[in-house]
């Protein structure tokens, strides 16, 4: 029986992301290894906004990469929508990212030589959609993030806030179950940051997409449903 996600309370729904016992160490220049984190358990349910905070260098971004299948954990398991991401072959993992995950970065990463619409449409293409449908969907998505009718513009004319709107549109255009955001407001002034965060969370909620945010910002953490702190000993509620 298909669960009715819209009516069921978050606590009852199956988690979109379920990570258990994750551990990761990095090699040191002088030999030996430094543990970034270990014993990390994390479950994020559809529609939930979870913020991860922690000191610099503790491995927040690495954790995010492990969750996205871009980096391998030394131990533990990551299930995205019930799929063990480590068990997938590389092309399948890439396909899973294209269809089930959205990404928002601190540095926006909007390709400068593609129009805004094409930037936003990229995940659709990567998920196998044809170009015309992808562009139509991208235009609609740009309208949702307040860039109505600007699909043909080039990134060079946009401000930082506008670029991040494009990034948010790109992250959500494929209706992913989970958006991974790494310091999404780190390059923005506080006022813009607040507006962008609001946009990201409201658009995600509207699509019942869960959001996992790595941040230093109290403002961002404050907007989350749950805030977790990462340290070498694990992930604990802040």
């Amino acid at each position, binding site marked *: 029986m298909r669960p009715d996600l819209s009516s069921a309370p978050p606590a009852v729904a199956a988690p979109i992301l379920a990570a258990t016992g994750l551990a990761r160490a990095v090699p040191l220049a002088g030999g030996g290894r430094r543990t970034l984190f270990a014993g990390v358990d994390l479950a994020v349910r559809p529609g939930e906004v979870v913020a991860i905070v922690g000191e610099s260098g503790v491995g927040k971004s690495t954790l995010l990469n492990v969750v996205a299948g871009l980096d391998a954990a030394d131990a533990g398991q990551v299930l995205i929508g019930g799929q063990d991401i480590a068990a997938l072959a590389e*092309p399948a993992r*890439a*396909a899973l990212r*294209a269809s089930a995950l959205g990404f928002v970065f601190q540095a926006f990463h909007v390709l400068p030589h593609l129009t805004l619409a*094409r930037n936003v449409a990229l995940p659709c293409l*990567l998920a196998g959609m044809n170009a015309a449908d992808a562009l139509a969907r991208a235009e609609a998505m740009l309208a949702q993030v307040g860039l109505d009718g600007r699909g043909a513009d080039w990134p060079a004319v946009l401000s930082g806030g506008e670029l991040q709107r494009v990034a948010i549109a790109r992250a959500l255009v494929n209706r992913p179950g989970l958006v991974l955001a790494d310091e999404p407001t780190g390059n923005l002034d506080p006022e813009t940051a607040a507006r962008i965060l609001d946009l990201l969370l409201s658009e995600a909620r509207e699509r019942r997409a869960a959001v996992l945010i790595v941040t230093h910002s109290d403002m961002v953490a404050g907007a989350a449903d749950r805030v977790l702190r990462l340290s070498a000993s694990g992930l604990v509620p802040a």
Partner: protein
Amino acid sequence: MHHSANGMAVTGWLMAGEWRAHPVRLGLAVLAIAVGVALGFAVHLVNSAALASFGRAVASVQGRADVAVRARSAAGLDEALYPRLAQLPEVQAISPVVEVPASWGRLARPGSEAKGGRFTLIGVDPLRAMAVTPGLVGISVAGQGGVGSRPNWQADAVWLSPALMRAAGVAPGQDFIITAAGRQARLRIAGRLAGADEAQLAVIDIAEAQWRFGQLGRLHRIDLKLVDGDAAWAVVAAALPADAMLATPEAEATRADALSRAYRVNLGMLALVALLTGGFLVWSAQALAVARRRPQFALLGVLGLPRAGLVRQLLAEGLVLGVAGAALGVALGYGLAVLVVDRFGGDLGGGYFSGARARLAFDTGAALLFGALGLVTALAGSLGPALNAARAAPAQALKGLGDVPDPARRPRAWPGLVMLGLGALAALGPPLWGLPLLGYAAMALLLAGGVALMPALARLLLAPLARKGSAFLPLDLAVRRLWGVPQAAGLALSGIVASTALMVAMAVMVASFRQSVDDWLVAVLPSDLYLHLEGAEAGGLPPADQARLAAVPGLAHVRFQRVLPVRIDPARPAVALMAQGGQASVPIMASTDAATPPGTARALISEPLAWLYGWQVGEVHSLVIGGVPRRLFVAGVWRDYARQWGAIIVPLADYRGFTGDATATEASFDLAPGADPAAVQTALQAALPQAVEGQAQFGRPGEMRRVALTIFDRSFAVTYALEAIAIIIGLIGVATSFSAQVLARLREFGMLRHVGVGRRAILTMLGLEGAGLGLIGALAGLSLGLVMALVLVRVVNPQSFHWTMDLALPGPLLGGLVAALVLCAGGTAVVAGRRALGGRALLAVRADW
């Protein structure tokens, strides 16, 4: 669930983006491929056109007989052989032929205004030739066949090939004066030879040819049609006297092919080198582009583009570049070939296919082949960077600066060293199929090895500077950058090193050759005045005329010489038998003081002859002179650049004793002290019989040397052009790689400016970096080029042309080349930097790429 990405659209969008951002870079990559393809294709077209017309010309003169019995020398065969062969049951049809070199008009040295030309005069019995070589039977003016209207063949009728009619500007019905074998005859043009378009050829009746041109009783060729089977061939061969040999069309074709083969292969190799240089450029451009676009690819990886998809993406880009470059290259190549054939003729001024007019035809197969080569080059150039990009972890790449090599990692030197070692080994190898293929392999390996060694070498060279540091900040920064990122330097260097090395190799080879030819000319031209009878192989000045010449006042000493072609091997072009009076004046390379064994004549052989036939000093070999095999004692080897197929010098007295032929085709005159060369020449000219006036060419050493070197330079003009193209491609490579690197490093410059380094200092740094790269590249290319030149001079040239030369280094040229490269590289870097720093440096800190 699994989606396959819509890779086509992704590729299209990204390429469109690249094209928008870097049209020049993409354009240059396309151009690099195009230049390589164009050169290869053009050289191929010109070659095949020239060879085809040459082949047609040869076939026309042969008249396409199955088998021909040929005289080993210009002296010909006794005509009694004709009925003997005709009566063999194995002979189905037979056609005796008189064949003498002939000329019309006044033969002149290059540059003079006189109009004249050489051709082959053929005497056939048309009744016999109809059955064997119908192409040699003329069609009369009235359009009647030759047999029925046979009386047309008598007396003064001559049939000319269309090519000869064009060259001499004559038409049927007109008179045509022919000089051959020291005699002259006025004949009437009866018509054109339909079957002999390309050859410079005239046909008269065999009886007339024998009578009018002093060949009574002699034949030079007997064309045969044999019954099937090898046995027939053997029977005919067994019936031949010593001065005749059997030549098949295959042997004739081999001979025609041999005439120009080495030349063609060399040009073909040069074209491939151009293509290879283009490949280097594509590779370095792609590698730099991939490095620059690494964050872009990383983003695509994060967003869900699988690695295989990324490789496909980059290969697709390479494919598009390759297809565009190949198409452009084929078009350019065809245009170039048309231009070259139009301007220089089929031999590119090489003088190998004289008389044959090249007809250029678009060769679809070759176009596809060279296009495909260009495509493969582009794909190969893209594959390495593509695999490299796919290996990168997308998350790190996304966060990084793009180009983040680790200065702690040492570049690997062994692959380059291994290739250099293999190259050295290959250079020691023997020729394969008579061609210096291993020599070329050695060149390619040396080149590849040298380029592969560049990062390690750059680091090694810069290590002392980097350790010491510099008080001058821009220099310090430049050195550290070059030292720290030798892979990037290696990329920029590959093109420059490759093109410099090739250019140096070529320049040194040509300079060595030229110097050796010059020295040789001085050695072989010791007299004050020379007389040469052009086209007089069949017979020259009789003794009475020689005596008249020798009696001209003002002469201290006269030496006469009889030169005639002699065949040793039917599949090889004839060698020149030079019967010289007096002491031979040639540059001896090796000789023996041993006494001439009894029953032998003392002979000096040329270096190519020694190579081709394996004759050595001190040996006794047999050579048919005057119809009988004579034993020759090889007393020495002399250097000869004039006769690629070999020459043998024998004493004139011996030759006359062997043959009874007392004529002379050349003479050298030493003047009495105080004699006026011009007056003596005029007197000599007056003393010549009128019949040979058109053939006689007087020359003085200085002017002959000048003409020879002019011809030399002209024939190497193509080489110079190819060199220039290689160096331009190299410089374009430097420019593109610098622009790309400067763009990739905008953040670095932004940071430097933020910390207070002035714009001027950054430009200075870039200039120094560029100049440093140029210097390293030029020096490395110079060293590599010298090694390759050694391979060219010591391996490739002797193996293809069978002569050696002394190594000569064109110092000023090489010095200028290095200086020009350093300046160009530095200037390019500054220009690229200036453009990149125009207001964008500050923004660069914020933007990732």
